[in-house]
């Protein structure tokens, strides 16, 4: 299936591509951030710091 | 009432003795105005077309230059603690401080407009229009800028961060101020519409500014 996008194809494609790119950046940022935070929590956990309740810093119910 | 007028008188007195509120704005204006011919070349028609924009930019920047210490100085010497504790509602005290700032720093700009208008090749009517829009619009600049000044205290941060937070809020004021003056100078739009929006903006900021500033100060206590 081919679409005919007319004389402004580049504009349309750029729009969709930009949207995809920005959303991908957002997702990438969130995933990387999650990784680094959990890694730091694990490090703290290993160094023996626990939360007040005595549970490990990492445990997620 | 005595409390508020005491606050206003004190702030104006300090501004005149220390900050030189009046002169800094006027001088800043002058710099901006002197600079323009070099930027756009010796084209008098163009200069007078840009006149209102230049004056408005000057006003905006001059108020930024002095506004960021509006609450910070009082915070640093402990006055703000006493003002917060006092029987005067904090919103009113904030409004009084902003009013004092406008009187010391905004009003001189308006007074100086006719002189600067001459330098920018504006005719009498145009100068009058710019002065009028400044009179109607600069309170909005002060009262929105006040929010940034209060945030500066809350955040322990001044300078550029404050400017970055406040400038977007002042863009509408700038747009309508310049639009109203341009309407008089080149037409064809009416002066009334943008001017009344400008007045509306000032009135809205007169209400929102003190409340937002007081809220920010209250929540930033420590």
């Amino acid at each position: 299936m081919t679409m005919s996008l007319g004389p402004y194809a580049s504009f349309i494609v750029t729009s969709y591509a930009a949207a995809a790119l920005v959303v991908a950046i957002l997702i990438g940022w969130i995933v990387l951030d999650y990784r680094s935070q959990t890694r730091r929590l694990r490090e703290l956990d290993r160094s023996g710091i626990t939360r007040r309740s005595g549970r490990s810093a990492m445990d997620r119910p | 009432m005595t409390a508020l007028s005491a606050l206003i008188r004190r702030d104006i007195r300090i501004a005149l003795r220390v900050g030189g509120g009046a002169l800094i704005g006027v001088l800043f204006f002058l710099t901006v105005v002197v600079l323009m011919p070099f930027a756009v070349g010796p084209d008098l028609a163009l200069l007078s077309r840009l006149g209102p924009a230049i004056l408005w930019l000057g006003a905006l920047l001059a108020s930024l230059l002095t506004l960021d210490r509006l609450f910070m100085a009082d915070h640093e010497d402990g006055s703000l603690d006493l003002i917060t504790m006092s029987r005067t509602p904090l919103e009113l005290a904030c409004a009084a401080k902003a009013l004092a700032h406008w009187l010391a720093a905004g009003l001189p700009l308006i007074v100086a407009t006719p002189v600067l208008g001459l330098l920018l090749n504006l005719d009498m009517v145009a100068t009058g229009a710019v002065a009028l829009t400044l009179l109607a619009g600069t309170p909005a600049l002060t009262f929105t800028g006040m929010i940034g000044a209060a945030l500066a205290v809350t955040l322990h941060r001044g300078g550029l961060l404050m400017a970055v937070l406040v400038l977007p809020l002042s863009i509408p004021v700038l747009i309508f101020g310049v639009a109203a003056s341009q309407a008089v100078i080149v037409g064809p739009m009416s002066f009334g519409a943008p001017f009344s929006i400008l007045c509306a903006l000032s009135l809205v900021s007169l209400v929102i500014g003190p409340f937002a500033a007081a809220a920010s100060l209250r929540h930033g206590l420590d």
Partner: protein
Amino acid sequence: MTLIDLANPTRFLALTTRVLPWLAAATVILLAIGLYQSALAPDDYLQGATVKIMFIHVPNAWLSMFVWGVMSIASLGTLVWRHPLADVAAKAAAPIGAAFTFLALLTGSLWGRPMWGTYWEWDARLTSVLILFLMYLGLMALWRAVEDPSRAARAAAVLTLVGAINLPIIKFSVDWWNTLHQPASVMRMGGSSLDKSFLIPLLVMAIAFTLLFVTLHLAAMRNEILRRRVRSLQMMQASRIAFSSEMGAGSRHDNASKEIGAA
């Protein structure tokens, strides 16, 4: 699970872990449907194929405002109830909202070039969206610049609420001033004036993007909670060291009972 439970960060983490995969799946499915339908949508008799930009532009434009709305509600939570989860919600939303606003501006100008013959025009709608974008950036700068998150939260909340005035201006700018930009055609009094063949894909895309936002927001909130947990644990570590050396002043209590991460 009641609302009170939700307010507890640990419960919140548990909930998001359970819900996020489903949300992500739903987003992907709806996006696929929306993209397929918009590919099939006919050309507009006036705008030609460029109308396809609409399916990206309009959802992003709506979301740019919606996200600020979410942040405003969270700000009320911060100022009125002083709830730490509200801080987290507001902080996590800002970059996502900025991204959507950026996309609305970008796709708008890409659409503007064929339609109006210019990428950018200083008209009221465009200008007010640009201001929205600058305010998103300002908020992000504020969050980054301030160490103490609860202090930053309160300042950001005030600024967010003040900035909310911009929302009605964006929404109604096309009605108040006659501008280049399209007046509302989907969400307006008396029903939509848009043809079904455009309306349905548009609505699907809008729902898909909203789901995308919810997914990203929950994930970002989870990150933020973890970040604060790390922070409070690090502070705890610092004061541990103090106790072992046992000297001088300072609080001897285990710290941060109010710190969200310590919950």
